[in-house]
């Protein structure tokens, strides 16, 4: 079957429309900070990457995770902590003389931004491995419920763990100097913006590569018909787990970057509404489209910015309405509909 598929598949790896769209997107994003607020753009880019990571799982693997805030938020905590404090204290239980917690301290000095982001990403990947291994044991809606429940558990850990500083969050996170050379705390935010842009475009291309790799093709086969993929001899659980870890890792990059951009890691980023928000962004843009999550993230972040100053209280209701509208009449999402109208791949 695989051999037949290889013979019949068109020889191209890249669709032309996707290449053009990527070039346009990159060009617009390079010029954008000179026209729009860099802070707004960086927020949208972080969420766009988060949504792309999420889309890798639902759009190509058919797995709806309702707990992706877990990876986004905890990577953000990890990066903020590494950048501000550095030293890692791990609790371990001691049973004698009575049950109590002791701390294993790994002395580290505050890390530069590139290592802080890397640390946050690695942490998200480890969490992704644990959560993924548990969640893929069930399918469909159970998968969604399990990820939601595990994310809620980690939310409670975030409330209780001393290093997250509870309601206050980790504030005043230093942005530092990238590779010891580039000052990310510049007043115009351009250095920070360009760093975020490079991270975003790099991860976007990586995700694109993953989707179009043989691994991505198997993932799509599992999405379409898992029993059939199993009968063809694929160990679907392994593919699903790898997809989950990759998705968590990219979500981690987004969260860690966001912590440096806003110099803050807070409970908002690990709480369940954040998991809902990334679902919304991907749904609005178009599940399983390459550019959908980016468009969806920009749409939702712009909408929230616009509404916040006018009818701040109603944001939740507006989000709910968009969910309902998307499910009932716009299941392909903005980009999905656009691609259908123009008859191209986006």
């Amino acid at each position: 079957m695989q051999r037949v598929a290889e013979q019949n598949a068109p020889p191209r790896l890249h669709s032309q429309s996707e290449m053009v769209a990527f070039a346009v997107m990159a060009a617009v994003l390079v010029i954008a900070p000179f026209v729009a607020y860099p802070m707004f753009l960086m927020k949208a880019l972080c969420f766009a990457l988060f949504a792309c990571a999420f889309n890798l799982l639902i759009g190509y693997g058919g797995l709806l995770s309702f707990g992706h805030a877990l990876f986004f938020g905890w990577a953000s905590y990890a990066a903020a902590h590494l950048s501000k404090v550095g030293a890692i204290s791990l609790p371990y239980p001691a049973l004698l003389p009575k049950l109590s917690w002791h701390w294993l301290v790994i002395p580290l000095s505050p890390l530069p931004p590139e290592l802080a982001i890397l640390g946050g990403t690695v942490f998200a990947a480890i969490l992704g491995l644990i959560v993924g291994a548990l969640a893929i044991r069930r399918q469909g809606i159970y998968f969604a419920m399990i990820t939601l429940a595990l994310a809620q558990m980690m939310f409670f850990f975030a409330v209780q763990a001393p290093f997250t500083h509870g309601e206050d969050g980790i504030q005043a996170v230093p942005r530092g100097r990238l590779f010891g050379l580039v000052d990310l705390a510049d007043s115009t935010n351009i250095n920070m913006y360009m760093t975020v842009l490079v991270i975003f475009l790099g991860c976007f291309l990586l995700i694109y590569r993953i989707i179009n790799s043989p691994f991505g093709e198997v993932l799509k086969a599992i999405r379409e018909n898992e029993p059939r993929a199993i009968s063809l001899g694929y160990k679907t659980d392994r593919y699903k787990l790898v997809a989950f870890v990759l998705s968590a890792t990219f979500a981690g990059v987004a969260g860690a970057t966001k912590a440096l951009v806003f110099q803050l890691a807070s409970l908002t980023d690990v709480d369940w509404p954040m998991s809902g928000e990334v679902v919304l962004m991907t749904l609005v843009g178009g599940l399983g489209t390459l550019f959908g999550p980016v468009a969806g993230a920009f749409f939702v972040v712009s909408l929230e910015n616009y509404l916040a100053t006018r009818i701040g209280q109603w944001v939740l209701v507006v989000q709910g309405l968009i969910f309902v509208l998307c499910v009932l009449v716009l299941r392909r999402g903005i980009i999905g509909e656009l691609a259908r109208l123009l008859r191209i791949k986006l």
Partner: protein
Amino acid sequence: MLELLGISPQALFGQLLIGLINGSFYALLSLGLAVIFGMLNIINFTHGAQYMLGAFAAYFLLQYAGLGYWWALVLAPVLVGITGVIIERLFLQWLYKLDHLYGLLLTFGLALIIEGTFRNFFGSSGLPYSVPSQLTGGQNLGFMFLPNYRGWVVVFSLVVCLTTWFVIERPTLVRAFGINVPRMITLTYGFGVALAALAGVMAAPIYSVSPQMGSNLIIVVFAVVVIGGMGSIMGAIVTGFGLGVIEGLTKVFFPEASNTVIFIVMAIVLLIRPAGLFGRTT
């Protein structure tokens, strides 16, 4: 033995009772979810919001119609059930042929709309709802003090759960001769929603009535459903009460983990028995 562990029997039995109360709500809500899932193949994310609507319905009935707890116990589930029927006719009926996930996403959207609307009008602080006069006070059982209302909640929800089980799992009712299937689906959704609202009314005097009372609860109930599996009605009931008790005991012996114990149990069950304790297939 309890004295050896440094725990007073009062604290232990007190937490056990709170565990049973929480367990009643878990059981009622996961029962409703299981009933809806069994018939509609949809996971009703709006369930928490509908539980909250039940509590608010009781509050409104008292404030604006002067109807007390006992009226609310009957009227609130009916009223909220009717909104459920409307939701099913307006939205859910279009989704049955699609992937399950769309049902989850749509009901999640509805939950946001309902919760957001109530938050705008009532803020996030709770509104008080008093215990009905017939059930104030309590019994001294010697080893602990049992408030009458709490005893009532445990007993009544157990009765509701077992009645539902009896009605649904009785094979004569499943015989589909002459049953209008689409209407049956609509009514099932209405019934599941009414169960959530009933739980909301019962919760009103214990927890205060607040817009976000449902959203955190529903996530725990999802974990309960994963643990029990939605295949069996009895499974939902047993798991609900059981986990409530486990949570209560955790509050006594290891309070740091009381918020997370149910999720940890879920993880362990997934490792040992992925289909859930009462689940048949995944």
